[in-house]
Each structure stands twice: as C-alpha cells, then as structure tokens.
C-alpha cells in the first residue's frame, strides 16, 4: 500500500477509527450523548476528507477498490444520511433505559461496510463490505431486545441475509470458476468478447449475484422480508435499512452491470424488466392494504426500487444519472418520513398505525407538515425532489424507448397516490371526528416539542427536498460529472 492508496481510503479509515474511539470511550465513560456526538464528529470528519480523495482522481487501490468520483459522491450521500440516522437514534434511544452506547459502534461499522461497497471493484471487497454491513444490522434491528417484534425482526433478518450471502458466494464462485477472475474490470474485459454469457455457469453465477443484490434492494420476488423487518426494527434503524443499506448495493450493482452490454445479454435485461414491473405493481398494490405506516413505507420502498430499476435497464450515463438523482431524492424523503415516525414514537411502542397520525396537524403542525412534504415527494408531486427524480427516470426510459416499463411506472404511481394520501388525510382531519383518537394521540403529549436537533436536521432535509424539486441544477451538474464514465 502506498501513501496515495491510504489517502484514497481516508474516509473509510476515519470511520473505522471513530468506531474504535467510541468503543474506547464507552469503556471509561458511559453517556449516550457523548457517544452520539463522537459518532457525528467522526462522520463529519470522514466527509471532510472527501475533497482530498476526490482530487486523487479515479484511483484504483488495486485489486480491491476503485475510488472514483462516482464512489466519492455516494460516500458523501451515505455519510450525510448516517448523520441524520445518528441524530434520530439519539433522541429515539433517550426514551429507553438500557445500555445505548454500543448502538453507535454498530452503526459506524455498518456505515463502514456500506462505504466499502461504494468503492468495491472486486468480489472480495463486495462480499466483505456486504457482510460488515449486514452483521452489524442484525444486532441493530434487534437492539431494543425488550420488544418482541424487534427480536423477531432481527432473527428473521439474520436468517434471510445469511441465505442471501450463500447465494451471492455461490454465484461468485461460479463466475470465478468460469472466468478465473473476481475483479470487475477483468470480468468486463472477459465478457467484452461479444459472445455474452456463453456458458451456463456464467449465466447461473450472474443470476445468483443479481438475486443476492435484489434481496438487499428488496425487489420482487426477494421482497418478502421487507414489511416485517421495517415494522419490527426501531424507526431510526428502519430509516438506515431503507436508505444506506440499499444505496450502497445500487452502486455496486451499477458497477457490476456496467460490464454487461445490453445487446450481448438480452436475457439479463429482460429479467430486470420483469423484476422492475413486478416490484412497481406488487409494492404499490400491497401498500394499499396496509394500516401501518412503517409497512406502507416498506411496500412503497419496494415500488421505489422498481422505479429505480427502470434506470438500470435504460443503462448508459443517462440511466446512471437518473438512478443517482432518484436515490438522492428518495434518501431525503425517506429520512424525513422515518425521522418523524422515530420522533413521535413513545417508549412502549412505535407510533406507526395510521390512526396514530389522525389529527396530527392540529396538535403538532411541524412534524405533520414535514411528513406531508416527504409523502408528497414519494408520490412525485411537483415542487418536491420526487417529481424531478421521476421526471429524469421517465426521461432516461423514454430515451431508451422502454415504453412497457414507463407505462407500468405511470399506472403504479397513480395507484400509489391513494395510500400516501390516506396518511396525509388522516393527519389533517380534525380530532373531534373520532372520540377515541384523543387518547390515541395522548402519548404524543410526552414527546418534547420540535426545535431541538432532530427538528433542525429534519427541516434541513425537507429544505433539501424543496431545493431538489425547484432548483436541481447544481446537484444535477455534479451527478452528471460523476456518472460520465458509465
């Protein structure tokens, strides 16, 4: 390893060092605020390293990593989201009497895993990153072990993620057996011959790898775990699951699929098209049946990654750009939504049924306005980033002439309006409408008023959503410059 390699991996090193630092501090002084502040400081420090990394242009740290501007952009995105999750976790965990410091070590480790994935250029780093991310997440999902649902969700996630890892490993082994290499550039070179997935081993291997990634992205038919685990996990962890742990897989999948030419392997793209359509329709239709906000958001995330796959199928720089921009808007909206859920949840349960939100506007206009904005962005209404994100997806799809996918996208988005609107309507209907809602909303009386750090973070994210919707040009220009290589 040369000094320039170390420089390229500076954000990763800082995050790893912060994890160690938090661990050391906990062993001498237990205070969750100190741990949280240290975590946030570490994440900011890692983000502050990005300019130095960026200037070290597209350097490979061979053979495992490739730190290019595309990876750096996503490192920045993941670190920002992690800061928000840390802040939400702090206020959420304040409500519990338990050892809370360790949560931040786990959080930092899973962030490290996600960061490794964003620069992975090799099956080994892909797998290591994924495991680091998942193993920490098992514990984070079940962190509030006094809650039955949380433990159940943790165990479920453990089993399913372990099964996925097995798929992924087997797929990698098959590809290695056929091509004799595990590095993405070499795989691309081998496949560049033009005869595509010539052998059944190679085809099976690719399908298994994509299936493994599909599980993490929770696209149909690998989506079964999503609602249960979203519902059972503590709300900040759900936010993390829905954003960071998915985005890093998107990045690695974009890199991996860039090796496959759509003309050479039509079967693969056909499969992705089917998965995308199924995800959009299943996610949106099943969300209609839910009464639980976390489950609604779970199904909606299935649909959103279906939308995102449209950009994958479209491919090329336009596809990568649309996917990246969509991720950014999805991040902001999802973090705001789960942030509100985390903030409103009392210590004995999650505030996650639609009934909990009835009349929220009248008792707490702040969180209600933020949650409405987030939901409108997920619908894709103009003014919010969600509209621009969908607009670019449609643009990329129309350029690639993917009319079937676009039709499904339009129809399923129209369906989605209904269930998002249900939550919004509940928030704005007055409390007197139903007598029992008074006592339902009583637990909210104990939550502190807005105006603390959580409120500030959420307000910033919401502002970001509006900026993305009204003046996306700066972000767009940046994304365009980092996705040029696709």
């Amino acid at each position, binding site marked *: 390893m040369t000094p320039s390699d170390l420089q390229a991996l500076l954000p990763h090193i800082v995050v790893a060092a912060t994890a160690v630092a938090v661990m050391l501090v906990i062993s001498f002084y237990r205070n969750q605020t100190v741990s949280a502040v240290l975590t946030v400081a570490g994440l900011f420090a890692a983000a502050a390293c990005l300019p130095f990394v960026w200037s070290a242009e597209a350097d490979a740290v061979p053979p495992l990593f490739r730190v290019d501007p595309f990876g750096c952009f996503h490192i920045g995105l993941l670190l920002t989201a992690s800061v928000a999750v840390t802040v939400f976790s702090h206020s959420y965990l304040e409500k519990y009497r338990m050892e809370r410091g360790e949560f931040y070590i786990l959080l930092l480790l899973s962030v490290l895993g996600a960061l490794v994935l964003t620069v992975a250029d090799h099956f080994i780093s892909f797998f290591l990153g994924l495991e680091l991310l998942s193993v920490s997440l098992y514990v984070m999902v079940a962190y509030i072990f006094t809650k039955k649902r949380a433990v159940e969700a943790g165990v479920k996630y453990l089993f399913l993620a372990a099964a996925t890892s097995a798929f992924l490993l087997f797929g990698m082994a098959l590809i290695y057996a056929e091509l004799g290499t595990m590095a993405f550039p070499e795989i691309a070179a081998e496949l560049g011959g033009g005869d595509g997935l010539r052998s059944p081993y190679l085809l099976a291997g690719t399908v298994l790898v994509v299936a493994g990634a599909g599980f993490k992205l929770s696209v149909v038919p690998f989506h079964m775990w999503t609602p249960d685990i979203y519902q059972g996990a503590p709300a900040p962890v759900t936010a993390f699951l829905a954003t960071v742990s998915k985005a890093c897989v998107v990045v690695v999948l974009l890199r991996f699929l860039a090796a496959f030419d759509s003309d050479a392997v039509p079967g693969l793209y056909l499969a992705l098209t089917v998965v995308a359509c199924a995800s959009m329709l299943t996610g949106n239709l099943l969300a209609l049946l839910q009464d639980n906000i976390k489950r609604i958001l779970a199904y909606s995330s299935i649909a959103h990654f279906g939308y995102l796959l449209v950009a994958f199928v479209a491919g090329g720089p336009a596809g990568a750009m649309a996917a990246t921009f969509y991720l950014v808007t999805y991040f902001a909206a999802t973090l705001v939504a789960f942030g509100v859920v985390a903030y409103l949840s009392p210590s004995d349960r999650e505030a996650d049924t639609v009934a909990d939100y009835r009349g929220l*506007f*009248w008792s707490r*206009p702040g969180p209600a306005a933020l949650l*409405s904005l987030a939901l*409108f962005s997920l619908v894709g*209404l*103009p*003014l919010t980033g969600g*509209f621009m994100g969908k*607009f*670019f997806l*449609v*643009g990329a799809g*129309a350029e690639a002439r993917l009319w079937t996918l676009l039709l499904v996208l*339009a129809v399923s988005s*129209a369906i989605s*309006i209904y269930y998002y*609107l249900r939550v919004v*309507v509940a928030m*704005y*209907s*007055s409390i007197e409408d139903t007598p029992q809602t008074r006592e339902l909303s009583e637990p909210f009386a104990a939550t502190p008023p807005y105006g603390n750090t959580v409120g500030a973070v959420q307000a910033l994210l919401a502002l970001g959503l509006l900026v993305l*919707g*009204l*003046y*996306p*040009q700066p972000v*767009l*220009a940046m994304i*365009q410059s980092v996705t040029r290589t696709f």
Partner: protein
Amino acid sequence: MNLTESSTAFSFLSVLVFAPLVAAAIALVLRDERRVRQWTLLATAAIGVFSLFLLRGFEASTAEFQFVEHREWIPHLGMYYTLGIDGISLLLVLLTTLITPFCVIASWTVVKLRSKEFMICLLIMQTAMTGVFTALDFVLFFIFWEAMLIPMSILIGVWGGPGRVYAAIKFFIYTMAGSVLLIVAIIALRLETGTFSIPALMDQPYDRSFQLWIFGAFFISFAIKVPMFPFHTWLPAAHVEAPTAGSVLLASILLKMGAYGFLRFCLPITPLATIHFAPAILWLSVAAILYGGLTALAQSDLKKIVAYSSVAHMGFATLGIFLLVHHGTIGGALVMINHGVTTGALFIAVGIVYERVHSRDLARAAGLGRQMPIFAFFLGIFCLSSLAFPGTNTFIGEFLVLAGAFETSLILALAIVPGIIVAAAYNLRILQRVAYGGTKNPDHSGVADLGTREILLLTPFLVFILWIGLQPGPFIGLMEASIQNILDIVARSSGALNP
C-alpha cells in the same frame, strides 16, 4: 420568437409571483394570529396595488409576450425560467392579485382555528396562481399548476364544512388525473420538438394525428379544471365544503385556468385538432349551459346554486372560445373575467348569509332583506349581473358570445336561449327568496345588516360589475390583439390544409 432580446432589467413578474411566498415566510415567523391577519392583508393589498403598474408598461396593440424574463433553470434538460404576459394573461393576473386581498377580508372573522396556517395557504396559492398565468416554460407552468393542488386541498380539507375530507379528496384525485395527462402531453411535445418553451411550440406544423392526441390530453386535463359538462362533478362538492375564501379562489381564479389552458395551449399549439373537435366541444358547452342552469334551479343550498351556475357560465366561456370567430372568442375571454368578479361576489354574499343564519338553505335565509336592506341591494346587483342583465358585466360577455354563435350556426344559437332564460329564473329565485321571502319567514330579528368591513368588501365587486358593464372597451382592448393573433394561427393552419 427570440425571448432573450426583450428581457428587462427589472424582474417585474418575478416580484409579482414570489412576493406572496416571501410574505408567507414572514407570516410563518409571526406569533400573534391577529398580526398574521393584518400582515397578510397589508401584503396582498400592496401586491394588488403594485400589480396595477403592469398596465403602465403594457403595450396593448401587440400580441407579443411582454415583461419577459428568461433565465437558465435546468439547462441540462432544456428547462428555462421564462415568464411573460400577453393580453389574456394580463387580465387574469390582475384578477388574481386584486381578488386575494378580498379573500383575506372575507376570512377575517370566519376562520378562527389556525388562522395563521390558513393565511399561509392563501399566500402560497397566490404565488402558484400568478405563476400559472405568467409561466412561458411548460415545465415551469406545470410546477405552478400542481403547486396549487396541495394548498387548495388543504384549504378545503382543513377549514371546510362537514363533508370537507370527501370534497378535498375528490378535488385532489380529479385534478391529479388531469395533470398526469398534461405532463404526458408536455413530454410528448418535448420529444417531438426538443423544447419546453411555450411560444416556440405555438404555430408549428405538427402532424395532424399527433395534434389530435396532444389535443385529447390537453382537453381532458383542462376540461376537468374548467369544469366542462361531463367532468364537473368535483365542483359542487368542493364549492359547498370549501370556506368562503376557498370558494372565491376556486370560482374566480382556478376555474379560469382551464379556459386559459384552452386559449394558451389548445388553440395555438394544436389548431388542426381544435378545428376538428370544435363542433363537439360547442355542443358540450351548450349541454353545460343547460344542465348547469337546470340543476341550479333545482337546488335549495345557496352555495350549490352558485356552484352549478358556475358550470353554466363557464359553458359560455368555452362556447365562446371554441366558436373561433372574433366576437365569440373575445366574448368567451370576457366571460371568464366577468365570472371571476360576479361569482366571487356571490360566494362572498353567501358567506355573509351563512355567518348570520348558520345555514345556506334558501328557506332559512328567506326574508333576510327586511333586516338587511344594504345587503339586499348588493345581492340584487350581483344576481342581476349573474343573469346577464343589460348594464352589468355579464351581459357584454354573453352578448358577444351569442353574436358569435349566430355568426356560426343558427341552431347552436337557438339552443342557448333556454339557458339564458333558466339563468334568469334561478337568479331571480335567489333574489326573491332572500330579499323578500314569503308570508312565513323564519325569525331574523337578531340579524344585523352589513358592517363597514363587509360593505368595503363588496363595493369593489359592484364597481367592477358596473364598470365592465357600462364601458367594456378598455377591458376588451387589452386582450383583443392577443386573441386575434391566436385566431390568426388557427385560420392559417386550416388555410394551409385547404388552400
């Protein structure tokens, strides 16, 4: 048309569009609800006065867009921040800026709960409405168009009557359905021409079948907003449940957007399809006039009567526009403005009745005129205006439309006549019941006549009703050139088809 050339140094329209938003941000910080009300009134009144300066710089003899601003917005996708107005949008912008202060006054005492949020919604609405009438980039237009949806749904759904949630959802879903088609048409036009600029899209030789599709998408989207006859069912629900200010905004401004869409997009962008579909639309408009009038006659809820009369009036507007002859189209555009003034005034009057007797039922309001002679005077003028009595504004507009209809087809013109008679019937019915009542009126002994605030609120409407009615020349003069230009585009394209 080169838009950059005419850019002015001072961004008049941007100020007009975004001033309400800035006012809303300031209102957000104010603590006292009374202060918020005073501030909102001050801000909207100042914007109203400021907007009148548009008249000084406006050149009425040309159809070019004026006060144009052209800036980069999202150049990557060819979207620009372009604002500008012609004669048609000028009057609608003025209508918007001048009506909003009266919405604030009308909600002064009625909105008790969360009046700060109410005022903020009103201000956001004003930004979006002004934006719709000034945007010259299709995506910008669409964003303003959609931006109205949320605050308007909230106005209905939060501060409305008992069935407000149902009405708000119905409004939201209808409008949303129209918007989806609109965005599809915008993207299709972009794929065909490579631009989002509205002036650049006008008067282009598109393929006939392409025009038919685009027109279809535009038509459904705008017909929902107008609302035209088969798409009107959201309107009575929304009007009845909305608070007075919401009803006024809906009737005076929002309904105009559909007709504005016809004039701004359907006619100049898809002229061939316009000619193709115009006969069908004319008969739909006649259906709206008759159906709206007859349904209004059968209602006992005052707000419903006015709501259905809106359907009939807007039928006159679309009828005039699609006659595609000089008198008719100008008449149609004038009906839009007149309807904004008259119906806005009638909704405020209904609100005043509701505040006093806590019911909008015609029977409960019977005989109010004895206790409220000043109110009866105002209501009388408003009802006469609504039935197109000579000397009032509506007469001029509907007369021009009728004249145009006679030019086009005698059967069509004769078919409208019953609609005019029905309009007289339902308006006189309101006037007779409310002003005089029968032999057994409900007890109104505790009811007070109009206060100073209410007289100040209603007088400007009265002034405009009589002004447009007695001297319509300046109003028509402002938009004549722009409308003639649109009609020329339509005539040219049909001429190119049959030389």
